[in-house]
């Protein structure tokens, strides 16, 4: 029984079913018990000839990053696929349409661009699709059929997966797709001579357990919000966060909650803060451009001490930027937040599992500490699909975290009472003796505007003091590797952290003395652990998906030492391969 770890890319134009084909493939492989991580890229235009790529890594081992090199490239559109050839391994497989539709120019045929070592299988996708269903639409399914035949994937099970995907459609649609698949399968079995050694049929798999779910980051966030008892979701559509709103629109009303689609992001966060003030859990989800519009309100949540949860799924920037590309370049903005000294909770999950976990935490912490919690995802994390163990629901303590005033408190109620923890008991509207006025102005313990030096200092300290308590609520950063005398310490965050972890594990396998640290909780940061880690490491490397090294700059104030950076702004997730290379490079330099 062999191990397998391969990357399949399907590349085509918008409207050719590229993404659906990828999705069906991933779901099917997952149902067989493989680990999968899939990730699509597509243009931000609705139609036209935009390029789509469905990328799936499939393995029987743990997967932490999407994989940089392609083992199998499936070409639905030649000219879009030419640049994808660069990522195909030396002896990788390319499946292409041997009868493609008309080309704009002669040199746009994929055949002319393949490197000598590549294994090319030409399949008449177009005519097979036509034959199966009377239209070229089914080319994607023909390709899946051919793949099943070529790489030892069971035919019948695959068909069931296709039927499932189109279950809500008309029978004729289901049939066309299944028939196209069949046509591809049969043709390939008969006509293609297999030259590669890739096969799924002989792989040892872990048993498929029942509570295994296929889910992407956005779905995980939405599910966690529902499980955390969210009552109001207020949102405004924006890629890559729109899906969270759409899920809420479907699911929240079933649970007696409300999904409010607002006129803009100012209103979205405003409604969230209103609901928080009234004592209900609420959230909004956006991306960088929307978050910029929310910055004023984020400061209000902090100042008026109202719980609010905001998801920012980052995309390429600046400005409207690259709506369908991934990047981690909103960190500085989110850390800085509103005007003034404005401490807030910032959580950055690095995996789909952590998307769930950090959302539950965000609701709990925001409510208990009466402040803003920002969840930083990115396009990749929002859309990358994983099959994961069903996460455990938040416990009772987490579901109801508001600290209410006691009867004694209410006798002479000071809503913003200075306490050791920074948390002041919070009365909710409707409580007879708890009346107070919250304000975005600086204010005294009773909420009355006050601008004297003493009040401002005491209240600022109170707001910052909450961070100490929060730090204790969350498990410390992951430190994987030796605790002292480390040659290379890699620190990362968000989706890049998973890639970095994978790279460090690989580096250790080849004998490099490397360690890894990351924290889901970025603010408050567990400075002690980072300082200790730093002290244990000869070199610190911070890989991240932005140009200027935003997290590295943030860390600098705590570490007081030079930091090596690895920055990528390709629009794609951080390849663990690149981090690995960088580690090896540093290891090399250290030896000299």
């Amino acid at each position, binding site marked *: 029984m062999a191990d397998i770890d391969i990357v399949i890319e399907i590349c085509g134009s918008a409207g050719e079913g590229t993404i659906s084909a990828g999705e069906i493939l991933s779901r099917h492989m997952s149902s067989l018990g493989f680990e999968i991580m899939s990730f699509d890229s597509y243009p931000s235009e609705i139609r036209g000839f935009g390029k789509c790529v469905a990328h799936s890594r499939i393995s029987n081992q743990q997967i932490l990053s999407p994989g940089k090199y392609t083992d199998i490239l499936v070409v639905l559109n030649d000219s879009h696929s030419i640049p994808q050839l660069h990522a195909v391994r030396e002896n990788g497989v390319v499946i292409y349409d041997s009868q493609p539709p008309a080309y704009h120019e002669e040199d746009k045929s994929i055949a002319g661009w393949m490197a000598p070592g590549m294994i090319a299988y030409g399949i008449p996708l177009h005519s097979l699709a036509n034959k199966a269903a009377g239209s070229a639409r089914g080319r994607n399914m023909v390709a899946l059929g051919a793949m099943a035949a070529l790489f030892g994937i069971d035919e019948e099970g695959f068909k069931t997966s296709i039927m499932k995907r189109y279950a809500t459609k008309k029978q004729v649609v289901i049939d066309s797709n299944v028939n196209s698949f069949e046509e591809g399968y049969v043709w390939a079995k008969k006509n293609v001579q297999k030259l590669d050694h890739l096969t799924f049929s002989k792989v040892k798999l872990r048993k498929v357990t029942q509570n295994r779910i296929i889910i992407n980051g956005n779905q995980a966030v939405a599910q966690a919000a529902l499980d955390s008892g969210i*009552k*109001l979701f*207020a949102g405004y559509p924006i890629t890559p966060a729109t899906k969270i709103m759409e899920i809420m629109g479907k699911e929240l*009303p*079933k649970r007696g909650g*409300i999904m*409010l689609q*607002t*006129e*803009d992001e*100012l*209103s*979205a*966060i*405003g*409604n*969230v*803060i*209103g*609901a*928080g*003030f*009234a*004592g*209900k859990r*609420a959230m909004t989800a956006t991306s960088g451009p929307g978050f910029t519009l929310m910055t*004023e*309100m984020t400061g*209000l949540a902090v100042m*008026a001490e109202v719980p609010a949860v905001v998801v920012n799924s980052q995309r390429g920037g600046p400005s409207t930027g690259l709506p369908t590309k991934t990047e981690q370049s909103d960190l500085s903005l989110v850390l800085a937040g509103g005007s003034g000294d404005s401490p807030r909770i910032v959580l950055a999950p690095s995996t789909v599992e952590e998307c769930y976990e950090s959302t539950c935490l965000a609701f709990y912490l925001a409510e208990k500490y009466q402040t803003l919690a920002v969840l930083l995802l990115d396009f990749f994390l929002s859309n990358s699909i994983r099959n994961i163990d069903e996460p455990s629901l938040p416990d009772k303590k987490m579901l109801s975290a508001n600290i209410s005033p006691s009867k004694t408190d209410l006798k002479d109620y000071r809503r913003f009472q200075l306490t050791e923890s920074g948390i002041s008991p919070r009365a909710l*509207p*409707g*409580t*007879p*003796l*708890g*009346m*107070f*006025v*919250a*304000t*975005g*102005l600086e204010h005294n313990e009773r909420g*009355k*505007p006050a601008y004297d030096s003493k009040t401002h200092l005491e209240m600022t300290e109170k707001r910052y003091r909450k961070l100490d308590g929060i730090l204790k609520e969350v498990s410390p950063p992951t430190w994987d590797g030796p605790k002292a005398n480390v040659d290379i310490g890699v620190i990362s965050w968000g989706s890049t952290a998973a890639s970095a972890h994978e790279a460090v594990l690989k580096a250790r396998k080849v004998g490099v003395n490397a360690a890894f640290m990351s924290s889901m909780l970025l603010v408050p940061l567990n400075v002690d652990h980072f300082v200790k880690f730093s002290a244990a490491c000869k070199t610190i490397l911070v890989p991240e998906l932005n140009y200027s090294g935003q997290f590295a700059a943030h860390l600098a104030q705590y570490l007081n030492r030079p930091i090596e950076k690895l920055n990528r702004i390709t629009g794609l997730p951080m390849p663990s391969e690149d981090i690995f290379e960088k580690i090896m490079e540093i290891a090399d330099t250290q030896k000299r």
Partner: protein
Amino acid sequence: MDHIERFYIDEKLADIKKDGFLNYRSKELPTWCPGCGYFGITQAIAKACNALSLPNENICVVSGIGCAGRYPIFMKAYGFHTLHGRSVPIASGIKLANEDLTVFAVGGDGDMLGIGGGHLPHIARKNIDITLFLFDNMIYGLTKGQSSATTPLGQKTNSHTKGNPDSPLKPISLALAYDASFVARGFAGDLDGMQDIFMKAIRHKGFSFVHLITPCVTFDKVNTWDVMRNGYHPIHESHDVTDRIAAMRLAEDQRFFLGVFYQDEKRPSYQEYLRQIHSA
């Protein structure tokens, strides 16, 4: 200075005599200028709440920034003094979270029609059940006398010393065009009229828009108490409040009318509509 002091004391004494008023007044002394129209509005809101016997703790007053924005501080209720222009979405969130609360959104002309003007069409079309009090003094008070969205054309202000070049907006016309289900106008000098309107507005199930004409005695030397007192007319009793076009005609009239322009009692509030649609 002693003059100011006396003013407040007089006002206080007078008020104590009027039953119920102080039930809805916090212990904070208003920071408004003596003679400001906001005192009258405050009084009328308190009286309306009293007449409706609203439990203080079930009232949530949400305001933006401005002299008007200070209002919640002077009211005995839950209050949220938010950001400039943002009282409406925050009030909306409160109502959606807890339908039992009586929610007011309060703000000035700059707050509600300038920076916050983008929220109005949407709270109206959603018909979320809050009552909006627009304290329209035709000027930016708190920032000291710049033109606002309702400053008359050509009026000299601190930002437009040669005259304001922007035609004023007509709040009632806007609210009608937005399909607000309750639209009315009061005048800060007309306590009884205001109380009547406020009671109707608060009782109305759905979004209520209340436009209040009020003088800024400090920064507006044109639209004074006197000018205002002589410029307004009660809407004639024969007006049919369910007739939108008639309401629009009144709103576009050169004369300023006071009273209820429009009310649609049949339209479900947002939360009612959601219940209908999701139980269907």
